[in-house]
């Protein structure tokens, strides 16, 4: 692992190992909370906050934690941070809280976080673990926000960000295709986004979806 330069660690989550578009993990929140760019970005930031905090704590404590009980400890650490994020969003961003609903507590089972804890933070020093969380987190935010923006643009003719609507084409007579902000639109837009990424990277990489999705296999508790 020490072969990774810090720069590589930071950038690989952005594109080469983008959690949503390449690794295909964390799909549930990515599809469910992306009916507009604003909620999608909020979900991304919440996930990254948990990822960063858990990576830091797990990396710092990696030498004291016995190998056999590391998974229960990861789960405790992650669920604690998720609960904290849940309460903070509820207290300070009530609208976001209402739109994200149960997907905030469900960050706990987001494979990205447990996956990075197990594969990276528990084996690496503090600084690379922070960079890893920042890279993966930004990759997740990017993917989910772009997905949200496309869906909102096609389905509602607008793009909203940080609680404000930046513009709305419905005023100019644009007839939105509601399908895109409804559940089917999420699958279809993500499908085309993955096809686009495949074209850009000219990789055949995504074929073994089964193997990649199986990152969800928790190492036995």
């Amino acid at each position, binding site marked *: 692992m020490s072969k990774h330069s810090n720069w590589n660690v930071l950038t690989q989550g952005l594109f080469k190992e983008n959690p949503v578009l390449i690794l295909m993990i964390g799909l549930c929140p990515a599809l469910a909370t992306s009916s507009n760019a604003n909620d999608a970005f909020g979900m991304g930031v919440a996930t990254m906050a948990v990822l960063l905090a858990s990576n830091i704590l797990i990396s710092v404590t990696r030498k004291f934690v016995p190998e056999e009980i590391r998974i229960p400890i990861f789960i405790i650490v992650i669920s604690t941070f998720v609960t904290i994020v849940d309460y903070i969003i509820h207290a300070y961003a009530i609208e976001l809280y209402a739109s994200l609903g149960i997907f905030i507590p469900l960050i706990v089972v987001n494979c990205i976080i447990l996956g990075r804890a197990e594969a990276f933070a528990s084996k690496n020093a503090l600084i690379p673990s922070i960079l890893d969380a920042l890279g993966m987190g930004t990759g997740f935010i990017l993917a989910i926000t772009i997905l949200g923006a496309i869906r909102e643009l096609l389905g509602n003719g607008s793009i909203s960000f940080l609680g404000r609507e930046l513009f709305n084409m419905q005023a100019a007579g644009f007839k939105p295709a509601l399908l895109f902000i409804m559940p*089917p639109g999420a*699958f279809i837009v993500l499908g085309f986004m993955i096809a686009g990424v495949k074209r850009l990277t000219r990789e055949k990489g995504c*074929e073994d979806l*089964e193997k990649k999705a199986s990152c969800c296999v928790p190492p036995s*508790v």
Partner: protein
Amino acid sequence: MIDNGMGWHMIFLSAFLINNIVLIRFLGLCSFFGVSNQFDTALGMSMAVTFVMTMASIVTWFAWHFILLPLHLEFLKIALFILVIAALVQLIELYLKKMIPTIYEAMGIFLPLITTNCAILGLALLNIDYSLSFFNTIVYSLGVAMGYSLAILIFSGIRERIDIAPIPHILQGSPIIFIMAGLMSMIFLGFSHLFGL
């Protein structure tokens, strides 16, 4: 979307078709895409999910109403639920391995996958959010689990066909699978006005 006043058959239908957990509510997608490549594996997974989902809903319902609520420890909900589910999955796995090896063979390998299946934890949280009664919790969980099974079984059938279908190069692999899921989701969306809900 669900409450105790709806009557059990409406709760069941809503969970089973109208608000299908996978295609409308977006829960359990990892396993939905991960193991739907063959009908047989999909069948094993849906059996395992149905079993664990119902058990987990019952156990978390008791944990919430008899431990967390009386002791005012609501903030331990997420941590306790995920640990309870993880422990439950382990127990079920051990029990089946020892006592009923035939069932273990059919769905055993899927059990470890289930701890991080967000449909299980999601359902446990939804039961609490809707403050469902004990009976309705069981009805709702069964409905959700059967909805999951229905979606994944149909989907695995389609995917077996897709493997031999001519598909534009750019969409081969996962893109076409997502688009198929979108089309299925559209079909399930059609159920929403079926029962005048």
